[in-house]
């Protein structure tokens, strides 16, 4: 399923300042360069208005959007801010809006985008810290709310776990794909409900609530149910499915939320 996110809220477009870096006097149509249009904004600067700045970046085989941003930072404008770490799709730090769609900068090759101009901006539904870097405070607050760890009575009693907690293959497969989440936050950036309701836990946190709730070793359902069965919990999800369309790791958080709803109903009925 492919969900186009062209209608997703975009950063304010104001003055377009063209700051081109032309290494060898190349033209736009030159296949050896690519134009990178980057959102620039410093909320703390008094005169700092959001603007799009265009850079010309030399093209090379396998060049990713993150590589291009790093090239700009090293060669043109060292004030450009963005977040990254591993450069290989594991840490989930370099989530950004690429041509209007939430993607990982390190996993997105410019050649595969098929556009002459690549537009890069901060993730939607997050506050901008500076330029492309966004504030993940709410994201991690929501993630912590669902208690993203195995809860067992031994933890509360302070007693050591004296035996291995074995699982069958079937038990592991109940939650396995959701354990692949790298917390890049792209799903929350694509979610229309997160955009409307800042208290909504979001697809990432809710899918993780399912992941731990479905784990046969976990005993923390009553604590977690209080959070997910709340006015800003899983029943706020309206099945837009855009979270699943943008996940770079093939996780289906949309399905996770629906499985969580089923889990809530099943345990509620079983409880009564």
């Amino acid at each position, binding site marked *: 399923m492919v969900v186009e996110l062209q209608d997703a809220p975009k950063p304010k477009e104001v003055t377009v300042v063209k700051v081109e870096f032309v290494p060898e006097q190349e033209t736009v149509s030159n296949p050896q360069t690519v134009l990178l249009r980057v959102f620039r904004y410093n909320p703390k600067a008094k005169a700092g208005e959001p603007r799009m700045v265009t850079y010309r970046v030399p093209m090379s085989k396998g060049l990713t959007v993150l590589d291009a941003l790093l090239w700009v930072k090293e060669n043109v404008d060292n004030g450009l801010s963005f977040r990254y770490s591993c450069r290989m799709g594991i840490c989930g730090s370099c989530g950004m809006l690429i041509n209007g769609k939430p993607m990982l900068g390190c996993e997105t090759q410019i050649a595969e985008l098929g556009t002459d101009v690549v537009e890069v901006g901060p993730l939607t539904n997050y506050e901008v810290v500076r330029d492309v870097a966004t504030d993940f405070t709410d994201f991690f607050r929501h993630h912590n709310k669902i208690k993203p760890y195995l809860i067992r009575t031994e933890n509360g009693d302070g007693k050591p776990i004296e035996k291995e907690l074995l699982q069958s293959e079937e038990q592991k497969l109940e939650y396995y794909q959701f354990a692949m989440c790298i917390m890049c936050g792209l799903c929350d950036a694509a979610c229309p*409900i997160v955009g*409307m*309701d*800042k*208290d909504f836990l979001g697809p990432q946190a809710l899918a993780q609530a399912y992941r731990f709730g479905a784990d046969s070793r976990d005993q923390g359902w009553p604590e977690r149910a209080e959070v997910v*069965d*709340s*006015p*800003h*919990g899983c*029943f*706020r999800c309206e099945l837009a499915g855009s979270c699943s369309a943008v996940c770079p790791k093939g996780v289906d958080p949309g399905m996770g939320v629906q499985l969580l*709803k089923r889990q*809530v*109903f099943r345990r*509620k009925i079983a409880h009564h």
Partner: protein
Amino acid sequence: MKESTLQLINYIMILALLVTLALHLAMQAFLGVNGYADALSYQTAISRYRDALSVSLLTILLIAATYHGLFGLRNILLEWRQGRSWHGVVTLTTVGLAVVMLGWGMRTIVLAFGGV
């Protein structure tokens, strides 16, 4: 009330709506005394309100439609704005609207059934 309970009731109401609405439309179109042509005549409409089965169907339809519609409205309003006081205002408003809609609808059904 927990969100899951409200949602569960909503699912039940959706099922009730599907059945009662289908039966209601079928009664209008196919099961009328003189078929569809006569379905909307005054006598046919009044006769439905005098029939116990038809009245039960209309009552269930009224309750299900009211709950389903107002539950949807509540969700839209809670997405639109957040906060404890807003939550309270929305809940009170939707409950108030439900009382008015059910009261008015039941009044019509009961009075027509009683022959007034």
